[in-house]
C-alpha cells in the first residue's frame, strides 16, 4: 500500500511538472498513436552505433525507411536493415509495419488517441542474443497497442506489444534454450523547448524527449529496462533530425550491444497522392 501511494506521488509530481512544459509526440524509439497525413510520403534514415559488450568495436546499423499515409487512420512503413555484423555493410533483412488509429478524442490543443500496430520482419543475420528485436535482428512479428495523450503541448506515450521471434534466414534456427517471445512496453514524454511562441512554419523547433523501453521474455522471465534521452530538431515543418542515446538500466538477459547512439533523419513529401 505504501508502495502504491508512493507511486501515485511520483505520477502526480510527474504530471504537475509536465503540465508546465510544451511537448511533442514524434518520439525516436516509439511511434505515437497519431498517423502521417493521407497521401503523404515520408523517408527516414535511421542509424545507430552501439558499443559491443563482449568484443571491441561498434555495431553499426543503417535503416532506410519509407512511410506512407494510406488514409487518415492507416499508415504503412517498409524498412530495410543494413549492418556491419559480418564486418562489411550487408543488407540483412527488411520489415513491413502498419498502424491503425481506432480512437481519437480531440479537443483544442489536446488529444487522446489509440492505435493498433503490427510488424513483420525477415532477417538473415545470425542469432546472437536473448533480446528479441524484429527491428534489425530477428525474423518474426510484433503486435501491439499504443496510446498517446497530448494536453496543452504535453505529450505522453505508452505502448505495449507482443513480439515473437522465428528462425532467421537461411538456416539460423532460433535456439530452443531461449524464449522466442516477449512482452515489450514503452513510456515516453516529450518537451518543446524552442520556440516558446511560434512565428512561422520556417522556424526550427527543438524538442527534448525521454523514453523508457522495457522487454520481458515470456518463457523465462528475463527482462531489461533501458532509458533513452533524445534531442529532436524539426526543420521547415517538413524535416526532422533526432539525436538519441540509449542506455541499459538493468538486464537479466544476454544482449550484445545495448548501449549507443542513434541518429535519425526524416523528410516528409506532403500530398504526393492527392
Amino acid at each position, binding site marked *: 500500500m505504501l508502495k502504491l501511494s508512493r507511486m501515485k506521488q511520483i505520477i502526480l509530481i510527474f504530471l504537475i511538472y509536465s503540465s508546465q512544459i510544451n511537448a511533442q*509526440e514524434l518520439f525516436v524509439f516509439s511511434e505515437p498513436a497519431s498517423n502521417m497525413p*493521407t497521401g503523404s510520403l515520408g523517408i527516414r534514415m535511421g542509424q545507430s552505433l552501439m558499443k559491443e559488450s563482449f568484443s571491441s568495436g561498434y555495431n553499426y546499423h543503417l535503416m532506410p525507411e519509407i512511410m506512407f*499515409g494510406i488514409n487518415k487512420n492507416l499508415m504503412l512503413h517498409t524498412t530495410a536493415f543494413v549492418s556491419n555484423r559480418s564486418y562489411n555493410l550487408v543488407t540483412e533483412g527488411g520489415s513491413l509495419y502498419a498502424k491503425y488509429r481506432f480512437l481519437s478524442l*480531440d479537443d483544442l490543443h*489536446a488529444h487522446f488517441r489509440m492505435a493498433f500496430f503490427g510488424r513483420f520482419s525477415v532477417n538473415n543475420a545470425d542469432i546472437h542474443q536473448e533480446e528479441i528485436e524484429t527491428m534489425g535482428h530477428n525474423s518474426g512479428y510484433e503486435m501491439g497497442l499504443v496510446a498517446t495523450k*497530448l494536453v496543452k503541448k504535453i505529450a505522453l506515450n505508452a505502448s505495449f506489444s507482443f513480439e515473437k521471434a522465428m528462425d532467421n534466414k537461411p538456416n539460423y534456427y532460433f535456439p530452443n534454450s531461449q524464449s522466442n517471445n516477449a512482452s515489450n512496453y514503452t513510456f515516453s514524454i516529450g518537451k518543446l523547448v524552442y520556440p516558446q511562441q511560434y512565428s512561422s512554419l520556417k522556424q526550427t523547433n527543438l524538442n527534448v524527449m525521454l523514453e523508457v523501453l522495457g522487454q520481458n521474455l515470456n518463457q523465462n522471465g528475463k527482462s531489461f529496462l533501458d532509458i533513452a534521452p533524445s534531442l529532436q530538431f524539426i526543420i521547415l*515543418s517538413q524535416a526532422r533530425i533526432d539525436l538519441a542515446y540509449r542506455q541499459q538500466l538493468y538486464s537479466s538477459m544476454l544482449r550484445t550491444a545495448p548501449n549507443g547512439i542513434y541518429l535519425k533523419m526524416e523528410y516528409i513529401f506532403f500530398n504526393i497522392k492527392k
Partner: protein
Amino acid sequence: MKSLKKIMIAAIVLLSIPSAFAQLSRVDIVATGLTCSMCSNAINKQLKTLTDVEKVDIDLNTNTFVVFLKKSNQITPKILKDKVENAGFFVGEMVLYMYFDKQKTIMNSAVSTNNLTFIFIDNSTRTLEGETKLKVFDKGYITSKAFKKVAKLIKYDGNNAIEKGNVYHVKIV
C-alpha cells in the same frame, strides 16, 4: 384590397426558403488535436491541394487557418473538414464568410444559396446583407464538447443532413 394581396404575397415569398445569391469568400478554421508546426503544415498542405483555395494564412499559436477562396468556387464546409481530417486532425471551429448580394432574409428559417443550405439555430430576426459571418454548429465542425451543448438545439442528426444535401446549422457571429 389589391395592395393587401400584394403585401401578403410579398410576405409569403419572404418567409419561404429564399434562394439567395451568395458567395463563400473566406473560411476560418480552428483545428484541434495538435500543437506542433509539422502538424499545422500537414493541414496547410492538405488545404492547398484544393484548386479553389487562393491562399492560407496560419496562426500557429492558435492553430487557426484562414482560407481565402477564389471567386465562383465550389468549396463546401465539408470539403474543408475532410481535408483537415485527412491531415490527421479535427475541426474545432469553422466560420464561413458569406457575401449576400442585396438579399434580405427573415431569420429562423432555412436559406439556400448556390449549393448550400443554412438553418439558423438562434431565434433572432436579422437581415442577411453584404458580408456575413456564419459559425457552423454541426457535428465535426465544433469540438465534441461544444457539440453536446448545441445538440439539443439541432434536435436531429445534422451529420446525415450534411452528407445528403449540404445542409448546415449556423449562427451569425
